[in-house]
């Protein structure tokens, strides 16, 4: 089968690999119909995630047709069209019992600090991902959701990660009616968080980024205010000025480890790897939120440590909420929102690229070429 394979930092290619097989009685083999490159895939692509092995296939956002099921699978059958949450989870462990499906204890032998994720290095379990024609889906009775007939496949694939992640970012902000919410990052997750903040009753939504085309998109699509940090002398001061000198009620970090905006952070975190990525957005979030406010983090950081003003967290009495999205928990409500026409996630898709051109797709997304916001990859069989 054709599959994306990692060859090293900034190097990927489409290769022919052996098709996956059933390895556990509750596995399914899924023929991929849609798959995306996620912003967090870029951390792998840039060689920042430890234990990313050459030959691995990335991809944790995908939909597909069930081709084969293991002997114990009862809830799926051949031919079902499913969306597959990016978390691999058992549904029964201590953490899954608390609906923390992104923190499952039974699916990632390599690390306890992160749950299992498709195609996200051995640090996240060593599973090949969905940027391929076929993918092994473990614990098929728990993870996949059959796509309702009235849900567009392009919307379905964005329900596997970016919409639930953006929604959970807003949810973890514990937004109260009329709150001012500042979102750092106008990537796909930040865009979804902006829309979700309205659903949760925000009174004001402000999105911060430096890419003008993305800011324009989110202003029009999510009806929010925008700030280009290139035009701002000091981010915390600017947000204070915008909020009667109090600070925002809620700040969301939807950027993570490769933030622009601070040369020292970028040099020490991204280039020299003296910290687990550049934590510029998180730094801004902590200093821009009001005293007693909430900082919600969905941006991805590495497992070591980062330079952030933790003293300000203490002295301002902040609440920090963070996690990988617990996708399955959100799906019923988010499907309702799509069906009701309140949100149309597929509006963010800007590029449709054949899987064969995977290297170009990664480069376009990574370098923000051609005003790219969200690329969808189409395997050959999905184009027939």
């Amino acid at each position, binding site marked *: 089968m054709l599959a994306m394979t990692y060859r090293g930092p900034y190097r990927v290619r489409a290769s022919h690999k052996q098709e996956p097989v059933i390895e556990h009685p509750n596995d399914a083999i899924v023929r991929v119909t849609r798959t995306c490159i996620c912003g967090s895939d870029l951390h792998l692509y840039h060689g920042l995630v430890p234990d990313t*092995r050459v030959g691995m296939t990335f991809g944790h956002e995908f939909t597909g047709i069930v081709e084969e099921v293991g002997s114990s699978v009862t809830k799926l059958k051949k031919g079902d069209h499913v969306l597959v949450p990016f978390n691999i989870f*058992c549904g029964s462990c201590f953490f899954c019992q608390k609906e923390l499906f992104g923190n499952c204890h*039974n699916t990632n032998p390599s690390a*306890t600090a992160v749950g299992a994720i498709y195609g996200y290095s051995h640090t996240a379990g060593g599973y090949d991902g969905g940027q391929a024609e076929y993918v092994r889906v473990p614990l098929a009775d728990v993870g996949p959701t059959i796509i309702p007939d009235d849900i567009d496949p392009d919307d379905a694939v964005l329900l596997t990660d970016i919409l639930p992640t953006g929604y959970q970012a807003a949810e973890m902000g514990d937004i109260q009616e009329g709150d001012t919410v500042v979102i750092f990052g106008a990537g796909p997750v930040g865009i979804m968080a902006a829309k979700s903040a*309205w659903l949760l009753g925000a*009174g004001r939504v402000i999105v911060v980024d430096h890419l003008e085309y993305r800011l324009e998109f989110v202003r029009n699509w999510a009806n929010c205010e925008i700030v280009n940090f290139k035009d701002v002398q000091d981010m915390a001061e600017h947000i204070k000025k915008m909020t*009667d000198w109090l600070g925002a009620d809620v700040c969301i970090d939807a950027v993570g480890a490769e933030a622009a905006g601070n040369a020292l952070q970028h040099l020490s975190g991204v280039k020299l790897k003296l910290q687990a990525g550049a934590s510029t957005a998180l730094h801004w979030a902590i200093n821009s939120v009001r005293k007693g406010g909430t900082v919600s983090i969905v941006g991805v950081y590495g497992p070591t440590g980062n330079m952030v003003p933790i003293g300000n967290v203490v002295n301002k009495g902040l609440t920090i909420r963070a996690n990988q999205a617990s996708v399955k928990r959100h799906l019923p409500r988010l499907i309702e929102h799509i069906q009701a026409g309140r949100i149309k996630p597929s509006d963010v898709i800007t590029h449709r690229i054949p899987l064969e051109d995977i290297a170009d797709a990664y480069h376009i997304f990574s370098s923000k070429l051609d005003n790219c916001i969200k690329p969808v990859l189409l395997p050959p069989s999905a184009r027939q």
Partner: protein
Amino acid sequence: MDPTVYTENTRPEDRVKQPPPGIEGWGADLDPQNRPAVPMERTPPRLDVPWDAPEQQPITVEILHSTERPGITPVFGTSTPPSAVSGMVRRAAFHYSENDLRRWLMLLFADRINVVEGILDDIAHGHIPNIWKEMGGPAEWRYNRQGFIRKAMIVAAIAGVATYLIQQRRRRD
């Protein structure tokens, strides 16, 4: 009045912002009862799971596991088992806990060794990797030609100056 003293003149209720008109679905999830996740961590979960714990997946390849857990998980990925020199470094790294910086630095080092191994493996299989294509060169040429030419000229200029300086030093020696 001392202008540096902040005085709150706004009534709290006036500080609540009103959203702009026409936002589809505004406040649809404002009532916690309508949210999918209240209570945020629900026990037991809403899922109907057919086991207390999944049965053990047969171990067919070498799987490294964290020292912070008692053993391998019931289910795991089998992509790209550790191999060659990078595999030796990975095995050594897994002797350290996730709490130990050495583990992560060794894994990053193994990743870099693995890149060289990948190139050697390609060549051993008669495949010369097309680095230009693997790095998305065609897309760069198509969408950022000016930037590419600028970067190429900067690299060429640096290489030229370095070559000139090396030649000058050799002449002096």
